């Protein structure tokens, strides 16, 4: 019988009459790792806020090493040996590792206000060594990879004498190699007798690491037990409260011969090299690669956000009439990349059904063409791009859902002549329709701000924004990152529906399971190059992973 370091006894908490936590009871055993899973809004954050002294509990209490424990401030929690490693890291990127480690408790020279720099540095070095981190303490945090920053956070927690460490989605921004290293360190810490709580949407990781698992739903513990007794399916069905026979909705996969996007030999020194890619009509093409493999960079090049030096990006079969009907804008700005390549003048092109073919061609060699390859031009050619960080590039956080979802298709809701007056009502109705069809849960769309939506609903709003422009090619970069299982399932269904309606999707992900479940084909990138392509019939975890790790062996040693 192991001793419990932390005990929750019937903890309840409600906000304005709404129960966030109901009678939560569980124990964390010494030297154990407890996996805590649940959908967004299940109460994980509230629970951890109570543990961390951010919020008081309404009822019930906690016991830390047998003693009553009711921290009133985060610093009391820290003093009691409870440390948090947050999703968003709390490091000062402009300071060195040492400065970050001791920011609130620099060793002093005697009792003077002066910092004992030498002591700080040597203690920092010891800490880094104890975690097997080959880093120099003077390095600015700015220069560290996300994985290394995470480890510095852990070092900081240890330096404060933490006995209980809570990890909240620690792997979201880590490469596979960094994740492995983090897991190694977590296992070491467990061996040293530290107790940990590990919160993640990545259920595979939870299962791999945890000794015990707790499932929260609607503020209640709905399932708990040793990890060995759990499977991913059991966790999901308990979290969601219904059985999902499959995480991935079924999809009929039949490849069309029609090519909508063709990439030939696209290169940008230091970023991507000789990329060849073909996207067919109604296809879901997976792009797999580790972080830093160039997959996001490639997507940004395709969407005209970054330049490329050589190569060609061309697309065909974009139905020009439909697009014009939706965007309702004259196509004056779409330059034909290479006049030689288009036999007809652009003006006559517009009336012919062939227009999309030539209008989409862009020549990398022609610097002028590269300049005109802007996101704006790409959108007019029927492309859409769900970026990987929805907070900075997907949404206007302080704007309403209508403003956000309507942003791309805005010109379609204005009178055609300057000053292009907006038809507010039509816009609101159209947005509301999209929001309903995507099941965005929110208040009235014209009053609810994007920042008040949950992660999953925010992501659906981003997708809705692009659906408003009826794209033919939809690029999605990590569309399910940081959203809960239920919302993930919905995003997958949306992708399938779109593909069934003829939209071609380039799906970028670092979760291989997701791609295996969703895609017709998977292309693997590593070090800026395409390493291989696999049809659905030849999907094979091992081979795809091996391709993704191509040339990454040196990277495992943690040089940056």
């Amino acid at each position, binding site marked *: 019988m192991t001793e419990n370091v932390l005990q929750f006894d019937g903890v309840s908490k409600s*906000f304005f009459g709404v129960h966030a936590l109901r009678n939560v009871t569980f124990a964390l055993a010494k030297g154990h790792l407890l996996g805590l899973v649940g959908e967004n809004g299940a109460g994980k954050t509230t629970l951890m806020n109570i543990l961390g002294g951010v919020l008081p509990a309404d009822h019930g209490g906690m016991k830390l090493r047998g003693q009553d424990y009711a921290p009133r401030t985060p610093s009391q929690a820290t003093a009691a040996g409870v440390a948090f490693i947050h999703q968003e890291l709390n490091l000062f990127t402009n300071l060195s590792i040492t400065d970050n480690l001791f920011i609130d408790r620099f060793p002093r020279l005697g009792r003077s206000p002066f910092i004992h720099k030498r002591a700080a540095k040597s203690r920092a070095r010891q800490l880094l060594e104890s975690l097997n981190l080959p880093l120099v303490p003077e390095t600015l945090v700015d220069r560290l990879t996300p994985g290394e920053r995470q480890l510095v956070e852990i070092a900081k927690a240890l330096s404060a004498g933490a006995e209980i460490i809570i990890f909240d989605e620690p792997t979201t921004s880590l490469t596979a190699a960094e994740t492995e290293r983090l897991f190694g360190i977590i296992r070491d810490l467990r061996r040293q007798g530290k107790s940990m709580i590990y919160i993640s949407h990545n259920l595979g990781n939870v299962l791999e690491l945890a000794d015990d698992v707790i499932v929260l739903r609607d503020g209640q513990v709905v399932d708990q037990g040793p990890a060995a007794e759990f499977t991913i399916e059991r966790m999901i069905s308990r979290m969601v409260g219904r059985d999902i026979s499959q995480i991935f909705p079924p999809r009929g996969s039949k490849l069309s011969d029609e090519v909508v996007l063709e990439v030939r030999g696209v290169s940008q020194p230091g970023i991507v090299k000789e990329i060849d890619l073909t996207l067919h009509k109604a296809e879901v093409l997976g792009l797999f690669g580790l972080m830093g493999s160039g997959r996001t960079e490639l997507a940004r090049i395709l*969407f005209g*956000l970054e330049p490329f030096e050589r190569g060609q990006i061309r697309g065909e079969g974009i139905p020009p009439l439909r697009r014009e009907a939706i965007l309702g804008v004259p196509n004056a700005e779409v330059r034909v990349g290479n006049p030689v390549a288009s036999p007809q003048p652009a003006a006559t092109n517009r009336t012919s059904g062939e227009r999309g073919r030539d209008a989409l061609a862009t020549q990398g060699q022609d610097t002028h063409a590269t300049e005109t390859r*802007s*996101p*704006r031009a*790409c*959108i*007019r050619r029927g492309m859409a*791009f769900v*970026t990987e960080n929805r907070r*900075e*590039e*997907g*949404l*206007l*956080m*302080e*704007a309403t859902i209508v*403003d956000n979802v*309507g*942003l*791309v298709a*805005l*010109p379609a809701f*204005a009178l055609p002549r300057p*000053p*292009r*007056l*907006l038809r*507010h009502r039509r816009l609101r109705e159209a947005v509301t329709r999209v929001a309903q069809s995507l099941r965005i849960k929110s208040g009235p769309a014209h009053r609810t701000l994007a*920042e*008040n939506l949950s992660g999953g609903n925010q992501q659906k709003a981003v997708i809705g*924004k692009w659906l408003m422009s009826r794209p033919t090619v939809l690029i999605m970069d990590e569309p399910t990152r940081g959203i809960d299982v239920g919302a993930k399932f919905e995003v997958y269904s949306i992708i399938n529906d779109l593909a069934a309606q003829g939209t071609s999707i380039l799906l970028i992900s670092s979760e291989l399971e997701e791609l295996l479940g969703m895609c017709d084909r998977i292309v693997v990138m590593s070090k800026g190059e395409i390493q291989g392509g696999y049809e659905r019939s030849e999907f094979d975890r091992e081979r795809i992973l091996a391709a993704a790790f191509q040339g990454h062996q040196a990277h495992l040693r943690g040089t940056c």
Partner: protein
Amino acid sequence: MLYLSILLFGVLYVFMPHIASSRNLANLSSNMWPLLALVLGQMFVLILGGIDLSQTSIMALTSVVGGMLMTTSLNPALFEKSPLWGVLLSAEGSPISGTMLTVPLGILAMLLVGMLVGLLNGLAVARFRMPAFMVTLVSLMFFSGLAIYLTKSENIMYLPSGFTMLGSGQIGPIPYSFFIVLLLGGVAHVVLKHTVLGQWFFAVGKSLRTSIVSGVPTERVIILGYVFSGFCGAVASILYTARLACGRPTLGQNLLLDVIGAAVIGGISLFGGKGKVLWALFGVLFFVLLSNALSMLALPFYAEPVVKGAVILLAALLDVTRTRLLTWEVVA
């Protein structure tokens, strides 16, 4: 803000009844409309998350340019040293002065100069990604200097009456400037609230990166914002120049903080993404009432800027706490 302005007016009326005298009211409104023109332009730039410090230099420059083009008589003793003497200027004014088209051409030139300076600001900010504060500060210094250089610091008198009428003329009790600025405000309101362009202004101010990804022509929007700010500077310059009946190279020198102050008091956020024409109006109303009251109190000369500064500080504080309160709501 309207209520605050009415409240302030009420309080002031109790203590200083002569504030409501028709002379003072006329004085109030003549100060208010040109300032509102400036604030409207400034608002567009603030919504973008930028700032236009160069507006007052635009006023000075356009005032000088307009004055030179329209004046009917220049004193050679004063203007001989101007670099334009003999080229564009002579004792009889400029080549276009004294004709039917003098006033329309002069006004057109003033507006064009204002927009041109705005265009330069906008290009530097949008195309070369320079910080707006830096760009417009340099513009402020450069064009203020240029205005003084062109005239060797002399005022240009003898402007045609067709022009000065714009500053002093009235329809009934209401000055022309009111109608001009009303028109400007109406256009600004429609653009902001009811056009695609207006939505783009807010989008750029709320998140430039999201706007770029979403296909908003961000460079064009930003450039337009500064051009409009320059245009408004020129409009204000026309009104002031006409009222003073002289082209003045130092016109508007002390107005910069009034403009920013009135905008902030009106609730237009310095962080971008927020602003309304009505807010601008109320901000200006409040600000003008305040300065009017302060000058009528006959306080020592240093007290006025101190009180004004305190009020602006308070408004800025309100802006920050409002932003923070909103974030708190989300966290909780």
